[in-house]
């Protein structure tokens, strides 16, 4: 097998090994075949091009073509010519798939099924990485750089699903990287020819060199030191151990199927296109929010769902209170394991097995989920306490069994400080709630924005409080957290807002996903508050009790009445009229809906993740910029000497492929350059003479005008170079590569010398006691 084919195979194999962590984010192993096929096709294309003696450019083109063919064959969906030749329609389809993939990625929590858009994006990404990887390992022979591609491949599953990616998955990528390096070095060594031991015996190519021993010992020592320091420094290991433990337990979303409520929330809101998911017909003139999930477990990772206990039967639910409404829901496209319902539901008529979680009132599918349900109906009450009642009511009794669960919060000193400052003056539960709402209001500088970090952990909440920008997720989590910090029982609810009016029905889309807060009052029970500015939430409902009881605030005291725009201190007064007739103010209707939860259409396309691509895009320009900076510093008037100018001339010659050898004197080199760039012959001569004078005369040379001479020479060389050479000189300057290579050679030689010296020292230190001359009388009794 030829060297390049062997290296290609090693490159492909190492990349494939690095993909094993994907097991954690995909359902099953169905993805493995297409992924391996993609890698194989790309490697084969590159290898064939190399075998045909083509350059790196054509190799890359061939590999890209291979990737395109694979994608077309796999995802062309009949749009391609002869299945593998992509047509414009194919690319259109790819665009659709990519969109689908992106929304799939943001909506679903791993493990996800490997199909459709997600698989397409996966193959595309892996294919591009495979091309880079092949280029680094085989084309450019810089396997050390391949560490970057391997790391990229490893980081993707790790960043997407840190919980699902156990630490031991790192072993395979690490081993494959070592394999790459070792294989390349073996190729290098075997290129030297046969090797002999000191005793003159022929040894196998794979027999380690004597120098390898010191390398092995230092590597071992390094690993031991690292492990020891990890155990000594506890902060380093705690997360590590936790994660390991979590992985072995299986970790993750108990009782929630495959959907993380937060991910579903942010994913749905960020999804560019609007898709209707539910159609509700109710006799309630102003329905409030549809509850789905209740998140009452607050850890340093943020709010999460408690384990739902599928205890109560639906039959136990009874409608209490004066006004009982009924609702009929048609499921258009909702995927969930919980049932969206208004207020306190009863008489639920639905197929399949469903149960009620007693603590939260969440209705959970027991083996059934919304995907199986076309429609259901229920009756409900939605009691609206008035502000006076709430002002008079106390909070949850600390003796209550639920107290612990609903007030538990991580100890974050900054949070305590903020709450003490903002809520410290409040005595009753309602005052505290109002203080928090006031704090989070627009008048205090908080602004609605969808482009924030999505994690709800403590740092993110502190970030939110500091930057004062966020959306319902941050608002709800911050409010509930602050209330818990102030010893008020509070929890986050995720569900859907009112939606838009369509005739007599309400239609809810993926942009109507919303999160809000429920606070426990002694008496009224769990009461809903929405800290998010209504301007950001299409179909937001205002809650009249979320205000101070004031005699002149008449309209707001009418429970269940349509909202006064000025009602909530936490609400933006505009654009949120919950009046049913205001249904026209849908995300497509209002003048400012695009700023809202539902109006994220344009903004969602710019997922912050894409910002990560910016450094990647900048990568090809690094050599050019580096080279430019080097030139600038050499020609800088303060530093300019004949030597620096000449160094630049030599580098230019190398960049533009003017052959200069070591045995040429500066004048001869200038002559050669003059031939390569006749119009700049004079400049070259001036530079050569200046260098000769600088190096060989006692006085040195006057650098005046040399910078201009270098520029003249540069522009003339550039003018006369053929385009390919010109671009190469610009973006991939040979002089820079030579510099790096010589530096590397120097360093490795130095390292080798040093390690040889160290091993000699160790050896002599070890052997000294064994000498037979123990009398220290310098008489030589043993071997010299």
């Amino acid at each position, binding site marked *: 097998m030829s060297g390049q084919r062997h290296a290609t195979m090693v490159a492909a194999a190492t990349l494939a090994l690095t993909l094993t962590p994907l097991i954690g984010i995909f359902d099953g192993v169905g993805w493995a075949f297409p992924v391996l096929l993609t890698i194989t096709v790309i490697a084969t294309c590159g290898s064939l091009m190399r075998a045909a003696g083509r350059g790196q450019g054509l190799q890359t083109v061939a590999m890209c073509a291979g990737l395109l063919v694979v994608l077309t064959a796999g995802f062309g969906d009949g749009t391609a010519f002869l299945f593998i030749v992509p047509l414009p329609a194919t690319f259109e389809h790819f665009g659709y798939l990519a969109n689908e993939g992106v929304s799939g990625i943001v909506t679903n929590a791993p493990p996800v099924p490997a199909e459709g858009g997600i698989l397409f994006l996966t193959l595309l990404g892996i294919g591009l990485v495979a091309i880079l990887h092949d280029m680094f390992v085989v084309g450019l022979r810089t396997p050390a750089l391949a560490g970057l591609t391997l790391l990229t491949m490893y980081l993707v599953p790790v960043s997407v699903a840190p919980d699902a990616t156990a630490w031991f998955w790192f072993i395979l990528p690490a081993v494959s990287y070592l394999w790459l390096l070792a294989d390349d070095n073996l190729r290098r060594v075997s290129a030297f020819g046969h090797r002999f031991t000191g005793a003159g015996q022929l040894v196998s190519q794979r027999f380690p060199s004597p120098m390898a021993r010191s390398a092995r010992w230092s590597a071992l020592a390094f690993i031991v030191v690292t492990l020891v320091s990890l155990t000594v420094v506890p902060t380093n290991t705690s997360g590590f151990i936790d994660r390991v433990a979590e992985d072995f337990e299986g970790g993750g979303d108990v009782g929630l199927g495959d959907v993380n409520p937060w991910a579903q929330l942010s994913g749905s809101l960020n999804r560019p296109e609007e898709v209707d998911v539910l159609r509700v017909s109710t006799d309630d003139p102003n329905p409030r929010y549809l509850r789905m999930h209740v998140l009452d477990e607050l850890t340093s990772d943020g709010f999460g769902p408690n384990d739902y206990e599928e205890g109560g039967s639906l039959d136990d639910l009874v409608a209490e209170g004066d006004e009982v409404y009924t609702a009929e829901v048609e499921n258009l496209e909702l995927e969930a394991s919980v049932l969206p319902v208004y207020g306190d539901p009863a008489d639920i008529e639905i197929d399949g097995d469903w149960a009620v979680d007693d603590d939260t009132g969440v209705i959970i599918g027991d083996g059934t989920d919304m995907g199986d349900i076309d429609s259901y109906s229920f009756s409900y009450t939605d009691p609206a306490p008035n502000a006076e009642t709430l002002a008079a009511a106390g909070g949850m009794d600390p003796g209550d069994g639920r107290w612990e669960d609903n007030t538990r919060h991580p100890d974050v000193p900054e949070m305590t400080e903020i709450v003490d400052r903002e809520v410290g003056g409040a005595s009753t539960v309602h005052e505290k709630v109002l203080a928090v709402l006031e704090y989070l209001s627009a008048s205090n500088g908080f602004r609605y924005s969808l482009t924030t970090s999505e994690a709800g952990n403590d740092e993110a909440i502190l970030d939110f409080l500091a930057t004062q920008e966020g959306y319902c997720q941050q608002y709800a989590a911050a409010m509930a957290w602050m209330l818990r910090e102030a010893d008020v029982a509070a929890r986050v609810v995720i569900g859907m807002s009112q939606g838009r009016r369509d005739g007599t029905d309400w239609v809810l889309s993926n942009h109507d996903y919303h999160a809000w807060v429920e606070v426990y009052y002694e008496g009224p029970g769990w009461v809903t508050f929405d800290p998010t500015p209504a301007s950001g939430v299409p179909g937001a409902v205002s809650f009249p009790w979320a205000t101070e009881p004031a005699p002149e605030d008449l309209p707001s005291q009418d429970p269940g009445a349509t909202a006064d725009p000025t009602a909530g201190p936490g609400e933006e007064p505009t654009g949120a009229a919950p009046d049913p007739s205001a249904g026209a103010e849908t995300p497509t209707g209002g003048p400012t809906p695009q700023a809202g939860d539902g109006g994220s259409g344009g903004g969602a396309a710019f997922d912050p993740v894409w910002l990560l691509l910016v450094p990647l895009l900048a990568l090809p320009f690094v050599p050019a910029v580096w080279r430019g900076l080097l030139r600038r510093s050499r020609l800088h008037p303060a530093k300019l000497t004949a030597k620096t100018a000449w160094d630049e001339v*030599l580098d230019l010659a190398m960049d533009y492929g003017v052959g*200069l*050898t*070591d*045995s*040429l*004197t*500066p*004048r*001869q*080199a200038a002559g050669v350059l003059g031939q390569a760039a006749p119009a700049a012959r004079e400049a070259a001569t001036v530079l050569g003479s200046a260098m*000769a*004078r600088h*190096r*060989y*005369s*006692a006085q040195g040379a006057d650098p005046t005008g040399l910078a201009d001479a270098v520029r003249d020479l540069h522009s003339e060389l550039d003018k006369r170079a053929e385009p390919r050479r010109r671009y190469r000189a610009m973006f991939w300057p040979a002089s820079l590569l*030579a510099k790096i290579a*010589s530096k590397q050679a120097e360093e490795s030689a130095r390292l080798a010398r040093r390690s040889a010296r160290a091993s000699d020292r160790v050896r002599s230190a070890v052997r000294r006691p064994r000498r037979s001359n123990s009398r220290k009388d310098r008489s030589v009794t043993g071997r010299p």
Partner: protein
Amino acid sequence: MTFESSPGQPPQAPAPLSPQEFKATAEGILTNVEWVIEGKSHTIKLAIAVMLAEGHLLLEDVPGVGKTQLAKALARSVDCSVRRIQFTPDLLPSDVTGVSIFDPEKRDFVFKPGAIFGNLILGDEINRASPKTQAALLECMEERQVTVDGNTYKLRSPFMVIATQNPVEMEGTYPLPEAQRDRFAARLAIGYPDINAELALLDRREEYNPLDALRPVADAEMIVRMIAAARAVHLAPELKRYVVDLVTATRSNAQVRLGASPRATLQLLRCTQVLAAMDGRDFALPDDVQQLAVPVLAHRLIPTTETTMGGGDTKAIVSDILRHVPVVSHPGRY
């Protein structure tokens, strides 16, 4: 024993020679000699450089290309005492160095100086003399003195031996011994003139021999001053290193049995200084070294038998070394 310098020269001021004066004088000699030897300015330049570097010159070429003419023209251009020795197989060492003969009037031995007591010595067909006569030149050339009958006589300054030899006709010749060859600073070949030069030569020689019309452009004292001025030319450490690298490369070359001596290094540097000064510079360049490397080094190398059998010659070896030794001895920089 001393000899007066040539008469009729006004005493020169001892002021140091500026590079421009040096260059002008050297060019004067060059133009003068070129008047006789057409189209060979580079060879003439090197010959002058050897003279001003206090070296000795070996002109090796086929008969009739102007070896003797060059030597004579050089001698005539400098107003100093010129001696000519025609080397023949029966030439004796005492013919070269001189001999003590009995003076019946004084009833004592009186030293009669030989041909070597001059400023410029033309040794024609040096390889035709017997080795012992050739050897008589050794002490003169290196130490610039002659010892006869226990008395040591200093030779004149400047002192230069210009020897010619014919490389083709080997019958009845005694090839120069190793030590003798090493004493020549440079070996030059003149080569055939090109067509235009040969035509010009015919025109000029129709009426008279240009050699006869040659007038000296410098005197011995001027030459001494030029020699001193050339020694002051700056030699950068990098340049010295380059010269040493070149010489070392001849010693480690696989095609060479015996490389160049440290004397070669010294003489190469001296000639380099002169060449730089002739260019009006007060510092030497590797370009100067490269012009001189073949003339100064090639005749000292002894190629291996394989090289000789394979038709290789030492000039090619030195040229090859020039192509491969880095001018600045950092890897990757030149």
